[in-house]
């Protein structure tokens, strides 16, 4: 199944997502958790700890830094850019903003 979680800031999207991902993993599903927030925090609610979450490099940044080639397959993508979270969940951070980029709307 593919589930998308959305809502206003602070309602608990990330907490619900992280807990849901682990609950599904414990129920026997193979789970990929995708953090699409420009301010990614899903690692914390998955239980990876704040500092490790903050240190995760997003796929886009890795590609921009040219230390990675574009990955042709989804499986390879998750494998190369994912991080291991508890209960066997694989976390992939899509994009993170940490630079000033004037002039771009």
């Amino acid at each position, binding site marked *: 199944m593919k589930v998308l979680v959305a809502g206003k*800031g602070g309602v608990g999207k990330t907490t619900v997502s992280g807990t849901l991902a682990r609950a599904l993993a414990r129920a026997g599903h193979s789970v990929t958790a995708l953090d699409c927030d420009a301010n990614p*925090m899903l690692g914390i609610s998955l239980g990876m700890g704040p500092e490790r979450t903050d240190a995760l490099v997003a796929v886009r940044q890795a590609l921009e830094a040219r230390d990675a080639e574009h990955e042709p397959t989804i499986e390879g993508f998750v494998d190369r850019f994912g991080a291991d979270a508890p209960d066997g969940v694989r976390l992939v951070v899509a994009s993170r903003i*940490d630079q000033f980029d*004037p002039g771009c*709307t």
Partner: protein
Amino acid sequence: MKPLRIAVAGKGGAGKSLISGTMARLLARHDRQVLALDSDLQPGLALSLGAAVPAEPPLLAAAEKDEDGRWRLRKGIGPVRAVQRYTTAAPDGVRLLQAGKTTDEGLAPLMGAIHAFYKVIHRLDEAGSLRDWTILGDLPAGPRQVAFDWAPYAEHFLLVVEPTWPSMLTARRVMRIVRIREEVTVSAVLNKATSEADVDRVRAFGFEPLAVVPADDAVRDAERRGVALLDHAPGSPAVAAIARLVTALERR
């Protein structure tokens, strides 16, 4: 009286709009002419100000497309006229300029207003008649708009921080982006504090809060009713703390 130029940023749900809206009205009560800027496409600032949300963003009328299909401000519309014509009135004499709110049809109906908003805020410094205005911008959650230069008017960034890891990490990410602009200063306000340990927590993380806003049931009540905190509970501890924050910012 020196005008203030402040942008408020932080994690979703930290209380940016609540603090911005309450601050804007308190600043106006200090005899300042206040322009409140709302670039969040989700509702928030109008509620905390106690202002009406127009069905359609007034700024739509300020935008047109050029021959190449790119949005621009209509001829004759500059920052002064935009503030005169396309702001809405909020209590205490605050003027509110909004980029617009997401509709059932998504962002498409708003694109003109969003572009007009971005262009107007980039030209505010051209307007001599706005020189004495205090400008207070409420940014949407996270670092995106800070990174994409949605607060060019800001001389000071106020980071709203809850005593939680996600909130503190977000504030740190935003601060790193803000710091690239050398002329800008940054401070933090702790919101939803329940104990002295919460204050210690953000201090240990590296933020010395300019003010501490306590967790306050009056805030929850006001937001459940959809009314401004300042009208619902003017004597509440949260309002008193935001008043202290305003004083601290004015003294800086």
